[in-house]
Every structure is written in C-alpha cells, then in structure tokens.
C-alpha cells in the first residue's frame, strides 16, 4: 500500500513538474525562505525537475546562521559563569563563537544542558533554586510560542532564577529587506509553512502589493513544494502578485490565535542584526517591559567580551567591491560555508558563500570533479 502511495505521488509529482515546464516561458527566480524547505528541495531533487530557467534561491531561513557572532559570544560568556545552568537545543552546541563553542565550554566545566523543550529549562529552574537557569532562545516565529510560554510560566510561578537569552527573528521584515535591496533578483517567494502555522499569512498581502510579487505559503513535502513553485510560476507568467495558500491542511489565514495572543503578551518588536545581512529594522522580537526581568542580557550585564571575525577574513573588502571572493587568500581553504571566517561566507546569500556554492571560482574541469574531490 505504501509503495502504491509513493508511486501515485511520483506520478502526480511528474505531472506537476510537466505543468511547470508547459507554463514557464521565461526565466524566473523564486526564493524559498525556510532552510527546511531548502533541505527538502535538495534531497528530493525538486530543483532538477524544474525548467532550466526556473531558479530556486535559498533564503536566510536558518536561524543559527543569521545569529550575530556577538550574541554567540555573549551566550558563551554567560554559560561559563559559575552557578549558571545554560540550556540550549542540541544544534547550538558546535556553533563557534570567537574563541569557543558551547561544547567546549562544557568541557571546561560549564554546566551546559541540552533540552527538548524550553519547558524543560523551566523545570530545571524549579529543581535548582540555588542556580541561575538560562535558556538560549534562537529561532523564527515557529519557535517563539515555546519560548513565550516558558517565560510566561516562569513569571506565573514566581521563578527568580530563570531567564531567556533571546534572539528571535521574523520572516516578513526579511522579505521586505531582500526586496528592498538594490541587487535583489528574487521575483516570488515561497513562504515557510510552519512559520505560517503560527502566524497565519495576514502579514503577507501588503508585501505582495508593495513589491508586486507572488507569495505562496508552501509546505515541505515534494508535492507541496512543486505545487508552491507551480502556483508561483503561473502567477509570474500572468503578471499577478497575490498571496496564495498551498498548505491548507496546516495553515489558516489567521494562524494560531492562542499562540499569537501569548506572543503579543510577552514580546515586542525590535531591530535585529542578521549575521551576513546587517541590521534589519523591526525584524525581531525581544521581551517587553512586563517580562524584561527575565531577559538574560539584563540579568547578567555581560561586558568586555571580545568578538572578532577572523583576521584572515577579507569580507570588508569583498563587501566594498575591492576584491572578488576568490581573491581572498582564505577563500575555499580556511574559509568555507561549514567553517566560515566571516559574515559573507556565513549566509548562503552572502557573496563568498554564493561564489563557493555556485562554483564560480572553479574551472570547468574542477567543477566536474567537485562532487567527489572536495568535501565542504
């Protein structure tokens, strides 16, 4: 039965891809914002099913990649303090700060805990009244309801030893920033399905109108992605710019109202620096005045930390246009997307990462052997 389903879905996928081929008469560039969608597109070969001219541009939807180095350093400084239990999701353990990472801080005696849910961190605060428990809350709108609930419960339970180191970033202001960039090439967006399961998609019609772009709320399955791309291409070909929902089984226009209510109670909009992109106005959430006492940055007042992008890195020159990425001595050697030395290699939209990923610095011969000769 399972194979029958897969076979049928395979047929539908082929049919959907054929429709995209029939509809597309011109090249189009479509950005999927979410890193999870990027994963699914690559794993399932969606981009290779598309006409040559339809290019998927991978957006800044990896919350860890866009977290500023200074905040990672601040997290490491707090985590190293005696009397602190520092809680994080597992994927932050090997994210490098200037000198170290959370896993190394643990090796030096720091009390680092990996939790499944922010509520686990609240529980640790209850069980360890003589310790300060800090939760590192990084993420987009999908993660925010969990962090909001943790701090809400900590306040309601009168916990004095729980705080949140928060760096929430928001999708709509990022779309606005990308579209406002003079170098922008993106012509349509696939909005991230799980972000919209929380926020709905009421924030998107003004963006679609302002920038004259189709925005399609899209899921993660191969069929979801193909359907999202298909709808975006149809709109582009017709010169339309509407917001469509291609993920109706999960996402409603209004979103999850219970979650939005608590988000509004706990957070307020703030400017945020995105690593590799810069400060985007009103692009994040921080704890508001009612919850400021639970802000780890307020509680720990960390100063004098030493944040430094690598001295080998010439990203400043690259950004000024003084050198091409491949002219930097560290490019492709000490510096790669997995071991970035600077902001322009961190974000996949950064100039160095783009050069690296697209292989523009390699000869045709090098390119042909790149899949095996080089591990990123």
């Amino acid at each position, binding site marked *: 039965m399972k194979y029958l*389903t897969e076979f049928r879905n395979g047929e539908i996928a082929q049919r959907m891809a054929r429709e995209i081929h029939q509809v597309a008469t011109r090249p189009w560039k479509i950005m999927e914002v979410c*890193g*999870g969608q*990027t*994963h*699914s597109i*690559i*794993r399932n070969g969606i*981009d290779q099913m598309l006409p040559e001219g339809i290019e998927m541009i*991978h957006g800044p939807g*990896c*919350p*860890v*990649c866009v977290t500023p180095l200074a905040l990672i350093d601040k997290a490491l400084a707090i985590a190293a303090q005696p009397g602190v239990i520092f809680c994080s*999701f*597992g*994927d932050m*353990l090997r*994210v490098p700060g200037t000198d170290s990472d959370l896993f190394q801080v*643990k090796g030096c005696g720091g009390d680092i*805990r*990996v*939790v*499944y*849910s*922010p*509520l686990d961190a609240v529980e640790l605060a209850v069980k360890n009244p003589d310790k300060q428990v800090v939760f590192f809350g990084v*993420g987009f709108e*999908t*993660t925010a*309801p*969990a962090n909001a*609930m943790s701090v809400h419960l900590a306040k309601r339970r009168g916990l004095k030893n729980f705080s949140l180191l928060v760096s929430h970033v928001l999708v709509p202001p990022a779309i606005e920033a990308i579209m406002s960039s003079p170098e922008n090439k993106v012509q349509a967006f696939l909005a*991230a399905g*799980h972000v919209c*399961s929380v926020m709905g998609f009421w924030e998107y019609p003004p963006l679609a109108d302002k920038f004259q772009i189709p925005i399609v709320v899209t*899921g*993660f*399955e*191969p069929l979801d992605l193909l359907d999202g791309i298909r709808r975006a291409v149809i709109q582009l070909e017709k010169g339309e710019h509407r917001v469509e929902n291609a993920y109706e*089984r*999960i996402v409603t226009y209004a979103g*999850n109202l*219970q*979650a939005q209510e608590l988000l509004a109670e706990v957070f307020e909009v703030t400017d945020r620096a995105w*690593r590799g992109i810069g400060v985007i106005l009103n692009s994040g959430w921080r704890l508001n005045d009612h919850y400021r006492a639970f802000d780890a940055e307020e509680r720990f007042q960390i100063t004098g930390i030493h944040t430094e992008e690598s001295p080998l890195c010439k990203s400043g020159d690259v950004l000024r246009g003084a050198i091409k990425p491949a002219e930097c001595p560290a490019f492709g050697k000490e510096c790669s*997307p*997995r*071991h970035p030395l600077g902001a322009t290699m*961190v974000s*996949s939209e950064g100039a160095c*990462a783009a050069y690296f*990923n697209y*292989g523009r610095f390699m000869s*045709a011969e090098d*390119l*042909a052997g*790149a*899949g095996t000769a080089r591990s*990123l």
Partner: protein
Amino acid sequence: MCLAIPGRVEQITTDGDVRMGRVNFGGVVKSVCLDYVPEVGVGDYTIVHVGFALSKIDEQSALETLELFRKMGALDEELASEEEAFARAATAPQSVCPDGSCELTGKNLRSAKRARSESAQ
C-alpha cells in the same frame, strides 16, 4: 530547526494549569504542551515544534511528513536525547549551519550543473 514534526497524541495530562500530552513520533514518545491546540484530543495527530503542538493535521499527511523528515534526518535531530546530542557534538565539526543546508546546497548545485553541462554536450 524550524521544522514541526507530526505525532499522535496518546494521552492528555495537566501540569498545574498547563495542558500537556504524551505524543508519539513514529515510536519516540515525548511530553508536549497542548495549550495552543485546544481542539486536539487523544488519537489526533498534531505538528509539534520544540515540545509545543502548533496545529492539528490529518493522519495521512502526518505519516507522509513523518517519513519524509525521517529520510531527511530531521527526526534524529529534533527528538535526540541529551546524551545523544552530546555524543553527536563530540564528533561533529564546528559549524554555523547545524542543519547542513549550506553543504547540501553547494553539493547539489554542483551536481546539477554537472548533469546539465553533460546533457548539453
């Protein structure tokens, strides 16, 4: 990191005034906050992110998405125990891109380019 994993609600409990539930993700059972999904009951499927249910989902979609995320390796990452997370970190290289999408993107683009240039010849 922003993926919400589908699971089946097996039991509903309360923790003080918080509505909690035991949710089964293809064999791994976790304690999950159900406060944001009052419409979800025992036997229902819901998508869950970092211990919070966000939306109800039908069974077939849930099972298909679960299978996709399993293939992507996303289940291991989201549902790992603390011991598993530390064990993985002990051998993992430092990376600002823990989900590996940068690496995937690079490899794929190259293989796609190669395939296209070969087919053009």
